[in-house]
């Protein structure tokens, strides 16, 4: 079977991997690069657990072929904290108990970070719509939304 040699940047590091055309970017991240923070919930673009940034855009990595990632820049949950220092969103998710089983959390954090980068002062409605592609079966979303809005306020220095 044909294997493709792909070079990409993942969380700022140059990486090379071999992948089969059947492998999604999610498969590659988890199985080839052993970055297992990104989760598979549905593998059909419905749940957002596999959210990553691809060339600055929030995508479902289960809907991207691994072979498509050539020369792309990918950011995953593993790149969010700086060493031991959590990203403000990560800290607020803890403070607000915005997770229970945690399966949706990496995807939600990546998606919320993308929101705050383009909209530092989002409304609650904007936040809910932006995160509508990230399903959570545990929390009921409210704590997540409050954690994101409070992070936004903190990052704006309020």
């Amino acid at each position: 079977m044909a294997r493709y040699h792909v070079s990409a940047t993942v969380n700022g590091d140059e990486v090379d991997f071999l992948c089969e055309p059947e492998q999604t970017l999610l498969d590659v991240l988890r199985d080839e690069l052993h970055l297992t923070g990104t989760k598979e919930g549905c593998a059909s673009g419905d749940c957002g657990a596999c959210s990553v940034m691809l060339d600055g855009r929030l995508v479902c990595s289960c809907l991207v072929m691994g072979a498509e990632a050539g020369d792309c820049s990918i950011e995953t949950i593993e790149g969010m904290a700086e060493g031991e220092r959590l990203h403000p969103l990560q800290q607020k998710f803890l403070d607000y108990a915005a997770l229970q089983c945690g399966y949706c959390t990496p995807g939600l954090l990546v998606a919320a970070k993308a929101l705050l980068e383009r909209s530092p002062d989002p409304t609650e409605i904007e936040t809910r719509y932006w995160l509508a592609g990230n399903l959570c079966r545990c929390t009921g979303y409210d704590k997540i939304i409050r954690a994101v809005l409070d992070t936004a306020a903190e990052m704006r220095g309020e």
Partner: protein
Amino acid sequence: MRYEAPETMEAAVALLASDDNARVLAGGTDLLVQLRADTIDPSLVVDVKKIDAMRTVTAEDGGFRVGAAVTGAELGEHEEFKSVWPGVVEALELIGSTQIQSRATMGGNLCNASPAADSVPAMIAAGAIATIEGPNGSRDIPVEDVATGPGRTSLRKGELVASFLFPEQAPRTGDAYLRFIPRTEMDIAVVGAGVCLTLDESGLCTAARVSLGAVAALALVPDEAADALMGTSVDEAALARLSEVASAAAKPIDDKRGTKEFRIQVTGVMARRAAEIALARAKGK
């Protein structure tokens, strides 16, 4: 399965023509789902996102040419296009989540040929032309002539939809798209309606196009719906007539998302409300 990402249209066409079981990959939001579900088993996937002309929006003869692989997010950020064709942008942006918007394309939405595709009635109402590239060069056809049935298109071997031409808009033209879904977003249209209309200086409708989605195997373009608006000031009587003929044109099926009766009724309501928005936009221009 082989993956290829050609950088030119010619190379893409040659690849597609070389394999009877080839598939075009644009945003992948339908294709990867179908691959995973084993509903398709292509021997070749041709990724068209490296072809510049398929990724850009350019001015052409007073209108716009939109590459078939331009994403919903990209078109939504194109202020100029959005100010001229807000209905088209709204329709495209209704598809899926933020994540899906980063990838989903109008070309893919059209060629996936779902009867419920949101961007298709809006493109049809706008009078958009699909430019198709193939082994025998390029040809232009109205968007409504691309899909021929659920999951089927009129594209011949080796052909792909390369771009859409949105022709120059007449003054006082407004477009709108509305769909009905039982929740606020992230769902598949139960009924969709796209309307584009033009007013003369006295406020009479001189051109109209109405397209209905999710109520037949194909997006419908009922002439009688457009005729209901033509020559009127799009007043209450015209809107009531539009609603009536749009409902009459709908040929929906019963499924878990809506019964036939419900869809027929809602078709009239959606067409009317879309026309009201298009009217307000036409007056504002």
